[in-house]
């Protein structure tokens, strides 16, 4: 295949990717767009085989087959609630692949290789390895293999700064004839940097880190494209990088804190390090039947779902309760906080899985004025996103984060597993408010009981 023809095919693939992203502006066309993107990827992969005509074709095809089988299996198998973990792993693997490409390019570099290309290869290794190890830590945290609270140890800040400095020095050495072990050292340092980068970020801030790591893997692809002189990789990587950075900004804005504070707040002490003690102050809990009366005779109920809903896989039970309420003529709306759940837009996906029409899902700015005229705010497995401390207590780690105004509703009902504080580890005043009622238990279980009780009214 001639280079011009290949370039043309890569251009078509790049346009497919842009179409795929553009289609995401409407849920109606999004699925078709995704298919267009996949076709673009298929074209690009076919072209690279036609251009390279590899001698070890069958080996490469076998590796491709293994990867595709694993990918399809994992993607089909994963529960919607575990989606953030899955995306984190996929993201990490992409970053690792990019770092390996750059490492091999460095290994095969000759005297004739331009300095710029070598420098960018070093950069690709750094960003790709950070995307890899950072994503793995984010995965471990989301899978609850690691605690949700920030993990820091004495001297971590110095280790992090030291490694970063070492990575920059080795990275700067690479273009000037450094031996190959330097590239390996850079790889190792970058992997550790990625770990130290994500460990101190508190659980509540994980959505932001995932978006940022997504941007990193995009940047890895773009930089790798520069190293290989491949325009498609540059376009695709840049698109992903831009999307990751944009999402990161949106998330940081939704948390009301500057990005640097979110990422390095724990290093400076404080930040998302909250109280971990269980409060002994009294709360009012009630039986499902009592709460069913409250809900069943309301004119309007706003449901504020959070990660607890995902953990309990309770989205279908929630839908059943909403159906029962709607049968009785109760208006049911859903208030979606931008950082509810563990990744941007997580709640929307879960509720969509339960066939809840996306038009009933209201964004924070849209729904907040409605709480005042709402009879019951039903908070399901959420905590920090309705915590008034974000508005009132300047010392609180979540101070300044825009929250759902659930406290303005006539009454508030919390479905909670226990009195343990939320992912960010901060106590919630709203739980002790006289107009608040709690129903303890697993969210799915509680919702089923409530639906049955409403039906029996």
């Amino acid at each position, binding site marked *: 295949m001639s280079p011009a023809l290949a370039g043309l095919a890569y251009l078509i693939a790049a346009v497919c990717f842009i179409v795929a992203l553009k289609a995401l502006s409407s849920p109606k066309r999004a699925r078709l767009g995704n298919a267009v993107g996949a076709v673009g990827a298929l074209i690009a992969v076919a072209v*690279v085989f036609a251009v390279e005509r590899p001698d070890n074709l069958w080996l490469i095809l076998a590796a491709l087959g293994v990867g595709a089988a694993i990918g399809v299996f994992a993607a089909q198998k994963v529960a919607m609630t575990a989606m953030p973990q899955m995306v984190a792993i996929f993201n990490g693997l992409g970053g690792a692949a990019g770092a390996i490409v750059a490492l091999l390019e460095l290994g095969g570099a000759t005297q004739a290789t331009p300095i710029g290309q070598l420098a960018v290869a070093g950069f690709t290794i750094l960003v790709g390895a950070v995307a890899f190890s950072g994503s793995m830590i984010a995965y471990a945290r989301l899978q609850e293999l690691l605690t949700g609270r920030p993990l820091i140890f004495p001297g971590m800040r110095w280790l992090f700064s030291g490694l970063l400095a070492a990575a920059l020095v080795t990275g700067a050495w690479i273009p000037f004839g450094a031996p190959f072990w330097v590239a390996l050292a850079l790889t190792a340092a970058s992997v550790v940097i990625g770990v130290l980068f994500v460990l101190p970020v508190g659980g509540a801030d994980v959505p932001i880190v995932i978006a940022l790591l997504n941007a990193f893997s995009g940047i890895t692809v*773009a930089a790798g494209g520069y190293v290989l002189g491949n325009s498609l990789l540059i376009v695709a990587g840049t698109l992903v990088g831009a999307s990751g950075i944009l999402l990161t900004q949106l998330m940081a804005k939704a948390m009301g804190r500057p990005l640097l504070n979110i990422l390095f707040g724990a290093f400076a002490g404080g930040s998302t390090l909250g109280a971990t003690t269980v409060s002994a102050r009294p709360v009012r809990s009630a039986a499902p039947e009592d709460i069913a009366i409250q809900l069943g005779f309301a004119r309007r109920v706003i449901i504020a779902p959070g990660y607890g809903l995902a953990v309990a896989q309770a989205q279908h039970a929630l839908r059943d309760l909403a159906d029962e309420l709607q049968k009785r003529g109760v208006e049911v709306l859903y208030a979606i906080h931008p950082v509810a759940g563990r990744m941007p837009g997580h709640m929307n996906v879960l509720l969509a899985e339960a066939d809840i029409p996306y038009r009933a899902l209201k964004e924070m700015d849209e729904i907040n004025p409605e709480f005042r005229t709402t009879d019951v705010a039903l908070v399901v497995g959420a905590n920090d996103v309705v915590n008034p401390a974000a508005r009132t207590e300047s010392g609180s780690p979540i101070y300044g984060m825009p929250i759902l105004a659930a406290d303005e509703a006539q009454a508030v009902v919390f479905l909670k597993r226990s009195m343990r504080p939320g992912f960010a580890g901060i106590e919630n005043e709203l739980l002790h408010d006289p107009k608040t009622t709690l129903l303890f238990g697993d969210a799915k279980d509680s919702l089923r009981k409530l639906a049955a009780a409403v039906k029996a009214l």
Partner: protein
Amino acid sequence: MDTVALLTVLVLAGFTGYEVIAKVSSTLHTPLMSGSNAISGIILVGTVVVAARADSALSVTLSLIAVVLATINLVGGFVVTDRMLQMFKARKAPAADREAAK
């Protein structure tokens, strides 16, 4: 391709990406992440290039590992995004459905 041409592509793609993605509705932020994540799996093209040029046992092994990882990212990413988007249906509220059924 020379450096300036590649840089031109980079900058224009950056602006295009930002403009396109700024219009994505917040309802679809998770599919956006997994979809863009799938697109970054196109590093597969790069891994095939290095695998084709690999000449030592070590570089062949490493590059094949990279091919596997990138393919998981690419294929898994598109499949999982499709699974998600399949669920977003523009339907009327259930109450309205029942009204219509009567």
